[in-house]
């Protein structure tokens, strides 16, 4: 075992514990303390999970973009591992968002799924990054897989605003953003305790995300090490 492995492991454990605490506090504040929504009632409380998960997914795709760009530029294995890890987590959080959204949509709109702009956008994002993972797993040669995936990671991320616009002009049904509105400050639109719950929840999701990312990154490193050792032994 490497010398620096122990403290990193410990730090990762602390990160995980913090994430657990923050999510628990966020859930408590969101489910018990914050008032129910004036129009939607209790159902709205799923927002405390829904919003953090989609924001985390976007952060993840941004990291895929960064990792891919760095890999193509410097050709270092760790950037590729970062991009791969972030892509997997991005798919996970996007899928979570869609599931949560369906659970919310059923009582609110009366349907599990509709081809509304934002839903479609999220589904397309999921498809892009599932394609990314498929591409990676199908190319045998590791370096080729990494560069092909890096191209897709860059293109996919830069395509998001375009897909966003096109899908929005196509059709829209989803409620407009209720917290960030151009003519009002955030705390004028929603009850402050809702905002607090949402913030704590978001911080919790971020901590959880980085915990999972560091685990997944370590996993990628280990896979590389095993491959290197196998090569060194000549088989």
């Amino acid at each position, binding site marked *: 075992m490497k010398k620096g492995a122990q403290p990193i492991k410990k730090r990762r454990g602390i990160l995980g514990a913090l994430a657990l605490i923050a999510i628990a506090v966020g859930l408590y504040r969101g489910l018990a303390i914050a008032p129910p929504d004036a129009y939607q009632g209790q159902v709205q409380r799923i927002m405390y999970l829904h919003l953090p998960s989609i924001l985390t997914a976007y952060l993840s795709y941004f990291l895929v973009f960064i990792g891919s760009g760095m890999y193509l530029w410097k050709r270092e294995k760790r950037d590729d591992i970062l991009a791969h890890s972030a892509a997997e987590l991005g798919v996970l959080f996007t899928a979570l968002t869609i599931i949560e959204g369906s659970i919310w949509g059923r009582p609110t709109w009366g349907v599990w799924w509709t081809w509304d702009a934002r839903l479609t956008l999220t589904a397309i994002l999921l498809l892009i990054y599932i394609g990314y993972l498929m591409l990676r797993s199908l190319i045998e040669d590791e370096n080729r897989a990494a560069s092909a995936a890096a191209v897709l990671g860059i*293109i*996919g991320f830069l395509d998001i605003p375009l897909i966003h616009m*096109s899908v929005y002009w196509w059709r829209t049904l989803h409620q407009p953003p209720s917290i960030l509105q151009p003519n009002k400050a955030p705390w004028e639109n929603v009850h402050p305790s809702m905002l607090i719950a949402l913030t704590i929840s978001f911080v919790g999701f971020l901590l959880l995300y980085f915990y999972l990312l560091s685990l997944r990154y370590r996993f990628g490193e280990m896979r590389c090490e095993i491959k290197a050792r196998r090569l060194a032994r000549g088989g």
Partner: protein
Amino acid sequence: MRRLPSTWRTDFCSDIRLLDSAFVRFWATAGLILALLLPLVLFPLMIPVILGTIRCMENILRMGELGEALPWLRLLLGFDVIFLTLGVLLFDHVIES
């Protein structure tokens, strides 16, 4: 029902096995699966182009005003600019390997 002669059974099984391994080899070596996958991977990325051309076409068919299709034309132009630039920038990095 009478049992099939055992030679038939083995023949049948070996045929299946042969077919199976042929398929596996075919898929794995021909790179065909990658060729099939490419449109699947690219489809979600092409959505702005698909939607934009559909709307522009619709506008042409009902002989609408040019102004109505302008946002879509701009979107298509933006797509072209971004992907042309990316293509030029990324090409060298990808081909060298």
